[in-house]
């Protein structure tokens, strides 16, 4: 026996795709309805089971082959044309892509350059397979590791209880200075959080950006500048950023 609102909103609820009002209403319902709670728990467990299956990374041979083609084609360093040929793509690959938003409006001077730098940092960490200098799920191990390596102490918080476990940290070199990179995990994805002194005590709200298929969240708090980068979907990364900002 499951109730009507759950029947309608089960998927968007477990996928964090419900609007805040519907989500609050549904949460309220779940508090009083054990059978719907069970349905939600089953769905969440199913998700965990699916994510426990082995990931298939690209074989080295394929990567080498594609890289070689890129170099032969001379496309590797070509300056991008601002999407003038979108119509061509739509015809040639069948459906085209619904372009949903334009998100590169920079809110602070230098923010756009900074955003490119943090995305580069994220990509480097994935491609070089170098996510950690210190691998630990214990914030009391990760935090002291930065002592003596940076001239500031980055706040380190574990969010395992919310489904975003801390998995480690490393030093990253961004825009000419060493910064702390904290690594969290969600599904099969890493979230890199870069932290350095903001140079101002003013707190900001979370800015939402996307670059090159990666999502970025940026905020300032307690004199620190935070940049969270991941290929994780928008909704969950926002959820993560809010959770971290609240700590």
């Amino acid at each position: 026996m499951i109730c009507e609102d759950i029947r309608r909103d089960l998927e968007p609820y477990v996928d964090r795709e419900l609007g805040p009002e519907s989500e609050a209403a549904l949460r309220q319902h779940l508090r009083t309805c054990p059978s719907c709670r069970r349905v939600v728990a089953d769905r969440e467990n199913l998700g965990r089971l699916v994510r426990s299956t082995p990931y298939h990374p690209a074989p080295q041979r394929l990567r080498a082959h594609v890289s070689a083609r890129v170099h032969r084609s001379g496309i590797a360093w070509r300056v991008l044309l601002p999407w003038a040929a979108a119509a061509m793509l739509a015809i040639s690959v069948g459906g085209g892509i619904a372009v949903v938003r334009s998100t590169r409006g920079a809110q602070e001077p230098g923010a756009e350059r900074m955003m490119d730098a943090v995305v580069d940092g994220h990509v480097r960490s994935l491609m070089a397979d170098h996510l950690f200098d210190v691998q630990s799920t214990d914030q009391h191990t990760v935090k002291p590791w930065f002592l003596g390596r940076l001239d500031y102490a980055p706040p380190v918080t574990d969010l395992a209880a919310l489904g975003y476990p801390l998995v480690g940290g490393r030093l990253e070199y961004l825009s000419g200075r060493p910064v702390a990179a904290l690594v969290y995990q969600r599904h099969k994805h890493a979230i890199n959080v870069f932290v350095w002194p903001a140079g101002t005590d003013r707190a900001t709200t979370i800015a939402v950006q996307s670059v090159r298929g990666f999502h970025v969240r940026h905020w300032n708090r307690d004199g620190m500048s935070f940049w969270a980068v991941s290929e994780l979907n928008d909704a969950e990364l926002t959820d993560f950023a809010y959770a971290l900002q609240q700590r």
Partner: protein
Amino acid sequence: MPALGFEEIVLPHLDAAFNYARWLTGNDADAEDVVQDACVRAMRFFASLRHDEARAWLFTIVRNTWYSRIAKRRRARDGAGLDGLDAEPRDEGPDPEAILLQRRTVDRVREALEQLPVEFREVIVLREIEGLSYKEIASVAQVPIGTVMSRLARGRDRLSSVLKRSAPVMERVQ
């Protein structure tokens, strides 16, 4: 607009493209061919790419490459038997239930997922494993968001009933 190339923008998503292709095709060899072809296409249309859409864009091209390949194969065989749009039923041997029971949970889940029809399988993979939003999945699969949602619902229902059949209690992982 920064002077970033294919290598910086598209290649970081190669693992994800391969994983998605592997789930679409069901084997390494096809997945490798599909991703390779897709990358060649992607290079050709690179100029039309918006940076912030790189991941979904590459998925879309991988998907289209796979579907045109299936269509070609089907024409070659003159429609005889091969229906790549549905998961091919497998011959499980004399007692599939008993065999399934002995397997580790992960293998059971993988198998159950592999046997789902591809339109359900792909939305589940894109959502649960690749973490795409409904909007992104809709653009990759070229269907409305409502369809993404209903495919997820039906796909998950099927998956969980297969799993419940193969083991009386679904074990918790993680």
